């Protein structure tokens, strides 16, 4: 810890959200363009059913990416979300099968998610492992435990009450979309209207300043990784309820799309700026692109390649946007 002889510099509280209106408008325009293109390609695109379907897919991606967004705003990275989702899904599915109680599964999924996040926080704060390495190691550990636990089995067939979370409707809108709207609204209020939420931005923008202004950075960081784990657990529940099955391969393919959704949404990898509404837009754009590939009859084997390309391009764009502001 540095001791300071000179009087402490005046540290400003984080100001209002950086004017991201332009960024949001650009992304809304992009969504509109893709939508126009798709509706000209296929007459079924602009139907209510298809649009709700796209939003439902986007909501799953958003849930995985939302916790990641918070971590990235604070200047960290969580590569374990996909594997965490896998582990939560497998454990909770087994718990539901063992007890035939959906509540047991919900408790196990959320508890497991938070526990993995807590472990990430401890590894980063106590063992001093860099975030990307700690969460990357956690990726393989969680995945390994999931594969070992399932031993090649697939758990499937759940009660309608549980499946309601993934494939049910409320007021004509799929339940996952409601979950996305509620968690998204909570997250936006947390980030923009609470002290801790504002501190998240300061941590990402200038960690030294955050420490000097008395923010318990280590504890806040652990909290964010726990929130990220919690969101992975929540997404796992909805995923299992939607698929009506759980197996150890479900979560890992979500990592790259989640990172892509955060970056495409316009949250900067360098920390300190971004937001959850942007991630929602990013998740929608990504889902629309996948939808477009399907409509254009592109084989599904191309999807990982396209996602990888989107990540590289989004990092490039992020750097181009931030370069002007930073140098």
């Amino acid at each position, binding site marked *: 810890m540095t001791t300071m002889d000179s009087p402490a510099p005046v540290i400003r509280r984080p100001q209002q959200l950086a004017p991201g209106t332009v960024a949001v408008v650009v992304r809304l325009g992009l969504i509109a363009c893709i939508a126009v293109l798709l509706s000209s390609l296929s007459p079924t695109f602009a139907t209510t059913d298809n649009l709700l379907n796209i939003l439902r897919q986007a909501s799953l991606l958003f849930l995985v990416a939302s916790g990641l967004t918070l971590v990235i705003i604070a200047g960290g990275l969580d*590569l374990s979300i996909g594997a965490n989702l896998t582990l939560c899904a497998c454990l909770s599915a087994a718990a539901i099968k063992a007890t035939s109680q959906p509540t047991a599964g919900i408790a196990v999924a959320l508890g497991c998610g938070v526990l993995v996040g807590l472990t990430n926080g401890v590894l980063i704060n106590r063992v*001093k492992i860099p975030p990307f390495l700690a969460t990357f*190691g956690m990726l393989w550990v969680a995945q390994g*435990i999931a594969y070992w636990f399932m031993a090649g089995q697939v758990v499937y067939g759940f009660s309608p009450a549980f499946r309601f979370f993934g494939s049910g409707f409320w007021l004509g809108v799929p339940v996952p979309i409601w979950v996305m709207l509620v968690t998204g609204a909570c997250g936006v209020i947390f980030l923009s209207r609470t002290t801790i939420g504002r501190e998240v931005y300061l941590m990402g923008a200038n960690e030294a300043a955050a420490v000097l202004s008395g923010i318990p950075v280590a504890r806040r960081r652990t909290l964010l990784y726990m929130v990220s784990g919690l969101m992975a657990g929540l997404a796992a529940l909805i995923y299992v309820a939607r698929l009506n099955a759980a197996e150890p391969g479900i979560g890992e393919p979500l990592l790259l799309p989640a990172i892509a959704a955060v970056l495409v949404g316009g949250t900067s990898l360098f920390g300190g700026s971004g937001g959850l509404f942007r991630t929602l837009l990013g998740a929608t754009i990504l889902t629309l692109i996948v939808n477009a590939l399907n409509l254009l009859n592109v084989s599904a084997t191309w999807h990982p*390649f396209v996602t990888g390309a989107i990540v590289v391009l989004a990092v490039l764009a992020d750097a181009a946007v931030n370069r002007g502001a930073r140098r």
Partner: protein
Amino acid sequence: MTDQIVHAALTAPAAALLRRIPGVTFILVGMIVVFAIGNPRFLSAVNFTNIGLQSSLLLMLALPMTLIILTAGLDLSVGALLGLCGVVIAELLVAGWGLPASVAAAMLVGLVAGAVNGVLVGYLGLPAFVVTLGTMGLCEGLSLVITNGDPIGGFTPALENFYRSTVFAVPTPVLVAALVYGLLSLLLYRTRFGNYVFAIGGNKDALHLAGINANLVHTGVYLLCSLTVALSALLLLGRTNSAHPSVAVGMEFEAIAAVVLGGTSFEKGQGWLFGTVLGVLAISVLRNGLNVLSVEPSLQVVCVGLLLITALLIDRNRKQASQNGA
């Protein structure tokens, strides 16, 4: 500068040398003792050959990874790139190309991947872990597109014969890995390029201000890694005698773990190439012992993670102890 380092190493007291030995060495020795007592066959020549073979491919990935981590970077794409190069070589061999042409094509793939990583990280200053995560997705996606998800087999047995061959009772892959170690340690400790690699991790801006093309050196490190990975695909094909898009997925984790186990840190260009050899040996011995105990591969990954955490904890405590003692 190299002379100074050599001079410092020669005059350094034994305590300093001891401090340089990474914590994983103690775990390695402990594991060898425990496994040797638990299973008499652990110390047999056959088993040493197995450990050597297991280590050779991992070393080929971990050694260039050491250079990347010395520059405070990371390459998450090596596993996927290894798989892609294996797929490329296998496909071309099946298509009737000769071995040299197929390997050249794989080298070209490695060159492109390394150039993308290197330019984005070295010249544009983008965070390495996300850039290489993107190229990982690209490589995995490409091998999936090329193979349609199916394994490729039935190419020349020459690769397997090469992998199984020995020179004076030493498996050829071990010699290949030793050669790579020798070349990289010459490059790192005996050339200006090596000094610049350490300097990039310490303070890239200072290197730049000294009039050295730091960006080019930085890019070169990623190119070097990707090209070595492309060559390692030959060992991978020799070992499995088939190519599968996802066979090498996760090897990047073991490679990174080996480097970190060996005491190379992500900060300030501190590291030791021989430490990486110790880290690779620790992982291979651990896996070998767990195989004997018939622990599932998925749980072995968990054990590698635990090994990493334990070693890092030991190193942290020793560092604190030495700081308190000083």
